């Protein structure tokens, strides 16, 4: 079986459809397409052996192909507060930087996440965060505050967590109990945009930490693969449910590591989605749970593992 690797293609609008067709023909998937003025960014999965071929074909079009470890993941960037007097928020810079590495990021500003004694997390915030592949918590400057408040704002969060804060990595590790999956020190509350080289270096460190955590999850998934590869299911949904193409969201169907978020109203479309024929004689409902998302009225699809369904599409 060919291994699909996440890559980002950056190039001009001119003849970019040829690249899209090529990726399609090679058996790859385009998870996200951004057109910004004259530029096109394609977040995609392509067979490892064919990256060189795409590079070669893209060369006359001045397109470049770079490995993007976070393609096909949806990450929540959680900030204890998005209050106006804390602008510019470091969470914005973090979200933007993760996006450049291919992730789909959502900002989650907690309603009552500030303070160390008074911080808390409500059920909606908890459920929304749990719908992601990973949560990045952008915390503040004081070790004492992180130690006290973090247990409250991580309560019942069962996705991997990467914590950032001003204390160094070792201090964060000491302060947080039980441990989380990743730590990045040196990013606290900063009242300006990330611009100095050492600050940008910290963002690179964060991307590395996030990809390390997600790679561990991918390895675990490889041992018991999903019944269908999420980008593949995404392609099937986009092809068969034509309403998706009429949505104005930047990502009408969002790929996650273990599922999809379809931005159609659950009440009207859930049954259509469940009955969707994924392969000969296999309905989507057989290989995945179709549940209402806590994010607006969207549909959340969680793909079941092969061990449970005995079906591999």
């Amino acid at each position: 079986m060919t291994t699909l690797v996440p890559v980002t293609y950056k190039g001009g609008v001119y003849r970019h459809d040829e690249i899209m067709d090529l990726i399609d023909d090679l058996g790859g998937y385009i998870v996200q397409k951004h057109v910004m003025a004259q530029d096109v960014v394609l977040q995609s999965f392509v067979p490892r052996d064919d990256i060189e071929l795409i590079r070669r074909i893209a060369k006359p079009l001045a397109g470049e192909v770079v490995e993007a470890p976070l393609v096909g993941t949806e990450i929540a960037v959680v900030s204890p507060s998005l209050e106006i007097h804390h602008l510019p928020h470091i969470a914005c810079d973090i979200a933007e930087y993760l996006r450049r590495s291919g992730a789909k990021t959502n900002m989650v500003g907690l309603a009552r996440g500030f303070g160390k004694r008074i911080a808390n997390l409500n059920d909606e915030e908890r459920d929304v965060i749990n719908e992601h592949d990973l949560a990045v918590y952008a915390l503040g400057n004081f070790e004492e505050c992180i130690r006290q408040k973090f247990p409250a704002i991580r309560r019942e969060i069962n996705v991997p967590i990467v914590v950032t804060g001003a204390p160094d990595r070792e201090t964060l590790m000491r302060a947080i109990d039980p441990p989380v999956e990743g730590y990045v020190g040196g990013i606290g509350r900063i009242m300006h945009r990330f611009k100095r080289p050492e600050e940008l270096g910290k963002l690179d460190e964060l991307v590395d930490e996030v990809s390390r955590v997600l790679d561990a999850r991918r390895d675990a998934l490889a041992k018991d693969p999903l019944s269908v590869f999420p980008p593949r299911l995404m392609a099937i949904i986009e092809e068969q449910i034509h309403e998706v193409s009429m949505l104005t969201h930047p990502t009408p169907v969002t790929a996650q590591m273990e599922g999809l978020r379809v931005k159609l109203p659950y009440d009207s479309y859930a049954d259509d989605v469940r009955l969707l024929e994924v392969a000969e004689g296999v309905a989507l409902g057989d290989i995945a749970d179709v549940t209402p998302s806590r994010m607006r009225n969207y549909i959340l699809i969680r793909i079941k593992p092969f061990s449970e369904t005995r079906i591999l599409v």
Partner: protein
Amino acid sequence: MPPLNYFVVESPDEVGRNAYERVAGDVLQDLDLIKVIDRLHIYVDPKVPIFVAVGLLRHMPRAIRVADFANVNRGEKEIVLDIGDETYLAPLLQKLWVIYGKENVDQPDRFTVVLPAGVAGDEDLDRLVVADPSETLYKDVIYALQYIAPEGFKVRRQYIREGKFYYVASEDTLPTDIVETAVVPLFEKMEVTL
């Protein structure tokens, strides 16, 4: 960092201290208060929890009077105010309306205000206070401190008078003697008495 004559941030947590030094610098720079604040001493301890900022202002802008931006020409029948700078025209009109009544204040064009001589007596129109920029400056300074303080510290006490200011904030209820125990010692470090 800003050219303050005295700028100290104290905290038992060294990492937090450095971070707050930068936060305070950024905020003062963003709000353009560096020229206004002369000295600033911040103490922050998340364990207590307490945030104290005390300082001195460089100079307070004085009150704006009519003579600062207009000529008052007294005639036989009417008094003509010849406006030089429109910045304070709106508050001036507000004041005049209150004092003389709207029907007596005539504004034939942008730069002229006419009052009947009979209504406006001999009182010193030149010296009439129109606006006090220090009022908004107070607000700006307090806002900046609110901005610098940790967000969870919602309980606060603030003071700004005669060039001195302090701002105390905490997550918990502030003790009644907080000014004596936390603020006065910081002023003493700056060799100033509150």
